[in-house]
């Protein structure tokens, strides 16, 4: 279980290999990567700036990891989230999960992203041709997170 909040880009291949080395008895590794898209619903995006609440972010990311480990039988859990200014197509977030069973690895990675999206204190500002604005919360993200609260 390891979480990192950093400005620097990450090397997906290296993160995967580190996970694999620790997780070698697990049999299944799922990764999710979020990239800066070059457009939003209205227009093209040149970059995003990600602000966070240092301290609380780390606390919540750790909490999400340990909640995932309580719900599923997991090996390794890794989260990296970037902050600062990111250009279109850059990597924003990495989630890696290993498990003996692929179903668990898939579900846990989805859970981590859904809960991260709605509870981890990050805020995103987009710069487009129309200027700079704060990204609004999406109802679809709320719905995705809500579906985990039943079980």
């Amino acid at each position: 279980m390891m979480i990192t909040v950093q400005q620097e880009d990450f090397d997906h291949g290296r993160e995967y290999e580190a996970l694999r080395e620790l997780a070698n008895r697990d049999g299944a590794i799922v990764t999710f990567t979020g990239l800066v898209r070059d457009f939003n619903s209205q227009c093209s995006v040149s970059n995003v700036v990600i602000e966070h609440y240092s301290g609380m972010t780390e606390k919540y990311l750790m909490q999400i990891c340990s909640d995932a480990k309580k719900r599923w039988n997991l090996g390794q859990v890794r989260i990296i989230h970037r902050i600062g200014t990111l250009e279109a197509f850059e990597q924003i977030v990495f989630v890696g999960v290993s498990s003996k069973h692929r179903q668990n690895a898939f579900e846990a990675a989805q859970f981590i992203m859904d809960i991260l999206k709605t509870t981890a204190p990050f805020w995103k500002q987009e710069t487009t041709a129309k200027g700079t604005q704060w990204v609004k919360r999406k109802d679809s993200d709320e719905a995705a997170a809500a579906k985990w609260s039943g079980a």
Partner: protein
Amino acid sequence: MLRIRFFGSIREQLQTSSIDVEYAGEETVSDLMAKLIEKGERWLILEEQDVLVAVNMTLCGKDAVINSGDELAFFPPVTGG
């Protein structure tokens, strides 16, 4: 003393990321908000519907109890990932 922090669009609209206020026995987040709003209209933003509150880095309701030395934070819905 209480440290009060602001993030995202709320920080931007208040034009401040953090203030320290004397702790005067406020029992809950709501009590403190009432006191802040007395300071001026711009603080009304804290009462907007979707503003989230954290006390000592834990998300909580406006009825959460506060104590001297606490760190409070007000921010809009999160949009990371």
